Each structure stands twice: as C-alpha cells, then as structure tokens.
C-alpha cells in the first residue's frame, strides 16, 4: 500500500474509532433496553479476536510447521494466563528457534 493510501486508511480508522466513542456521549442519554442487543455488543470483541486468530496464525510466518509450533506454545501459555507480552514473545522465539533448528 502506498504512503498516501496508508495515510487515508489511518484517517478512516481514526474516524470510525472516534465516532462510536463520541456520538452517544454527545447525543444520547437513554439506555439500550434489549438485553440481546447489549449482549451482542458485549460478545463482539471475543468473536472478532477468534476470527482474526484462526486460521490466520497458521499463515503468519513462511513455514506452516513453525507456525503450528508457535500456535501450540501460545495456546498453552495463553491458557495459563501468562500475559500478552510473554505469550507473544515466546511464540516468536519458538518460531525462530524452529527455523534455526529444523
């Protein structure tokens, strides 16, 4: 993507990030009554994260076997609540080690 296109994309992202934060604060004072709509909004980040993570992670590095090894490491460390930074760094180190060793 060219620099101009990237700048435009960043501007668009900034706008669509700001508007949902700002519009209700500025113009809306009532509560959403439907528990289904509120639940739907609540579950959105988890659904997004799931859809982004898989199967994307398997294609995130050139060698899929390395990606698979890194994925397993991330799943195990993530399950044991190791924190974003630790999980990320360990996955990278394991993928790199896989490339060097195998």
């Amino acid at each position, binding site marked *: *993507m060219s*620099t101009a296109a990237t*700048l435009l*994309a*960043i*501007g*668009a*992202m*900034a706008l*669509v*990030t700001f508007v*949902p*934060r*700002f*519009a*209700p*604060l*500025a113009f*809306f*004072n*009532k509560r*959403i009554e439907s*528990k*289904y709509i509120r*639940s*739907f*909004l*609540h*579950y*959105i*980040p*988890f*659904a*997004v*994260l*799931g*859809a*982004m*993570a*898989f*199967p*994307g992670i398997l294609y*995130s*590095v050139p060698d899929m076997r*390395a990606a698979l090894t*890194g*994925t397993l490491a*991330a*799943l195990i*460390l*993530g399950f044991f*609540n190791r*924190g*974003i*930074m630790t*999980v*990320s760094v360990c996955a*990278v180190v394991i*993928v*790199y080690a896989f490339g060097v060793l195998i």
Partner: protein
Amino acid sequence: MNTKSQFNQGLRDGVPVVFGYLPVGFAFGVTATAGGIPPWLVVLISLTNFTSAGQLMGATLIIAGAPIFEIAVTTLIINIRYVIMSMSFSQRIKPNMPLAEKMIAAFAITDEIFAVASLKKGEVTFNYITGLVSGPYIGWSLGTLLGAYATNLLPLGVQQSMGIALYAMFIALILPAARESLAVTVVAGVAVAVSVLFKTLPFLSTISAGYVIIICTIIAAALGAYLFPREEEDLT
C-alpha cells in the same frame, strides 16, 4: 475536590493502565512494522486511534492491502462496543459539559479506562478524565514508538518470526476470558470455526479477509447473545 487534585487523582488511577499499555503498544509497534508498515505511520496509528483491537485489525488489513472502505467497515464493527461504553459514560459526566471537553472524554474511552472511570465513585469530572487518560496515552504511543523503531534493527529471520506475534497476542487476549466464561468460549469457538470454514471451502475462500471477519463476528456474537443473554448490565 478542586480541579488540580481531580487531575492528580486521575493520573494516579491511570498508573496500572500505563503498565498494561506500554508492552501492548510495544508489541503493536513491532508487529505492524514487521508486517511492512513504515515506523512513523505505525506511531501515527497509535496517536490517532488509541485503541488496541481496532488498530490491530486495521494494521492487519493495511498489511494485507485491503481496500480502504473494507478497512473502515471492519474497524467500525470492532469499535461498535464503544457505543455502549460511551452511553454508560454519558450518565456519569455533567450533562452540560462543553462539546470540546466531551470530544476529549470520548477519545479517552478504551476498555480499560472506561472500566477504571466507571468504578470511580461520584461524578466523573473532565479534569479527572484528562488525568486518567494522560499516562495511558503516553504509554501507548511511547510503547509503539519503541517497538516500531526497534524492529528494523533486527535480522530478517527474526523479523519473519515476528509475524506470529500479533496472532499470539489475540490468543493471549481470548484464552483468559474464555476460561472464565462458557459464553465467551462458545462465541470465540464459533468465530474460529466459521473463519476456518471460510478459509477452506473453495467458494467461500474467495471472499476477502476483512469481510470474513465481519461475517464471523456477527454470526458468533449473535449466537452468543441468543444462547447466553446477559441479565445485568456488566458493561465491561
């Protein structure tokens, strides 16, 4: 309480968030730069967006060369959750707060800052909000800056390996929440299943990445709302 001490109280309350944001900002800086976005633009994303999931998604799509409209729609969908936070937040501030101050308060709404501000007793003043957001905003941007400029100093093998960092971060965000909640497990699991289906089925695999995420998200979150409607307003 006077305005200065309101600001200072916000500043203090924001300290734990700063420690949370520095490393995530750093990881974002590293991964977005490793994916091919120039470092100064990566920093610009953090300065103007100030949101984790949305800008991660946006950066992923920029790297994939997705059309701008698609990037905007996808980012908007991820950020829709801010609508409920902003609605809730509107009940806590002075109704006659000037528009310019409302704009700054709105920009400050992230999952974490919203949570901290919501737990505060009494009215949330503008000075408290500006104090609360200052540390995390600097931490987020500074973390990104350090991550973005550290990346290009690394050898190619390491840079390529860092492609997995972004995705490992998604996993690190989902799993702790999934352990706590069956509903979150089902929602994330359904999203993964639908997403894998789109990647593998011959006809569906032609649909571009951004739209696949939107479709997966709507299906999984709607199913979650249908199966596990939340009774009380746990807005965080």
